[in-house]
């Protein structure tokens, strides 16, 4: 579904990605792991066009999207939940959700019920402004809002950051469920390597902007050197 070839991204003289290549098959979860500064967030920001690649190719369903405007990507089936959740604090919960579905028309109301079904606490707080939510609820809102766009590929940046382990595990289980039930494809950036690998079909380890390993979760976890050097468990 997603194919990345030789991706290079730089912020001025600082190179964040140095020739990253990988593919993400349909209806799978791919975990992107690595330490702080490995280039995980840069990878997602490059994929969604917030940062432009210096070179390399990004292909979504066979179409080159490397130059597509950011606001076009959601129309091609890609949704990005940015780091720090990107919930708009001044808007109500429901307004945040509708915003996710607006591009499909119908005032963004189509699919609201499904999201409330997935995240019951959001239904109760639908009229409240988003800044009143707890960390876990905000993460639900951010993911729910991305789902409102009915994406086929979901880019998630550190969904478990700052969440209680139990809540983080819930979110990860939900991703696995969406993959199994709806065929959603997920590219999951995580510091919490153990949790991410527990639901992923594949793991990619980044270090200093390069892919240093790409394998099935069991194989990555079995490699002691890799675990100690990059995954921290």
């Amino acid at each position, binding site marked *: 579904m997603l194919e990345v070839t030789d991706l290079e991204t730089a912020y001025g003289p600082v190179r964040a990605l140095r020739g990253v290549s990988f593919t993400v098959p349909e209806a799978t979860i791919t975990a992107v792991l690595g330490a702080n500064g490995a280039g995980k967030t840069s990878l997602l920001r490059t994929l*969604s066009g*917030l940062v432009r690649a210096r070179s390399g190719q990004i292909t979504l369903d066979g179409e080159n999207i490397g130059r597509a405007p*950011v*606001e*076009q*990507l*959601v*129309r091609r089936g890609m*949704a*990005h939940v*940015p780091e720090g959740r*990107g*919930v*708009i*604090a*001044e*808007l109500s919960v429901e*307004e945040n959700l*509708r*915003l*996710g579905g*607006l*591009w499909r028309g119908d*005032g*963004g109301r189509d699919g609201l019920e499904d999201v409330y079904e997935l995240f019951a606490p959001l239904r109760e707080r639908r009229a409240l*402004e988003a*800044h009143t939510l707890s960390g876990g609820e905000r993460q639900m809102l951010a993911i729910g*809002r991305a789902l409102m*766009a009915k994406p086929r590929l979901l880019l998630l940046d550190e969904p478990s950051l700052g969440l209680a382990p139990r809540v983080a595990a819930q979110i990860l289980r939900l991703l696995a469920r969406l993959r199994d039930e709806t065929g959603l494809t997920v590219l999951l950036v995580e510091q919490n390597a153990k949790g991410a690998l527990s639901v992923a079909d594949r793991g990619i380890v980044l270090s200093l902007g390069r892919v240093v390993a790409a394998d099935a979760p069991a194989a990555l976890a079995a490699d002691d050197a890799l675990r100690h050097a990059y995954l921290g468990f």
Partner: protein
Amino acid sequence: MTRFIDLTLNGIANGAIYAAVALSLVLIWRATRILNFAQAGMLMFTTFIAWSIIDHGASYWVGFLAALLSGLVLGAVIERVVIRPVEGAPPLNAVIVTLGLLVLLQAAAGMIWGGNPHSFPPAFSIKGYRIADHTVLFSPSDLFGVIVVAVVLGGLLLLFRRTSLGLRMRASAFEPEVARLLGVRVGHMFTIGWALASMAGSLAGVLVAPSVFVGPNAFDSVLVFGFTAAVLGGLESPPGAVVGGITVGLALSYVSGYAGASVVTLGALAILVAVLMVRPSGLFAPAAARRV
């Protein structure tokens, strides 16, 4: 007592105009975090367009509509052409650009229409209503101004609160990057924001024109009062802009009536300084919801 009532009514009438100017500043500040110093020039220019049309024999209402429409277009064009390049740049860049634009518009108006002030007709009679043998300081024209500004505020609130376009505009203003990720064409939203703001400014221009005459620098003081109103209202909220406008209108009317017309501008600046000292975020500043 009748004097107090007169001054109050007069303050509300003027306040409606300041409210419209404040609305134009607030809409742009919300959308693009830019203080539009060029607003005085923009509304002067569109009021001149209305004056030309009326001067050529068309009815007042044709001129009135022309001012609003040209305001809409002027705002959109200015955002696209000169503001777009400084969006996201350090704030000082935008300040310099809007100040430069003000000078440019005033110079251009001077070249096209000359430096002499022209009289501008009011919408309706400017003779005050007669109530119990007393002519109050409030005319049908004043009433028209108050009603139009109320309608504009109501329309804006409906737009922001009740429509998808408004939701997109608010999202673009609060979190442009997130809005883009959700498929909102943020650039379009900024253009629409500037167009609406400029139209509110043009409305203020034609409303105030009968009392200040139309000239390249005629509207500078109106901008100062409107700016004071916008800061008083918190720079963020349209209702704040209107409450700020009416408050400034009332305050200046009392200053003018009880202390003399020559100290009115001083009064406005005193309000501005007082607000900045006591409550720098304004009366209607949003709760500390940011930085989450």
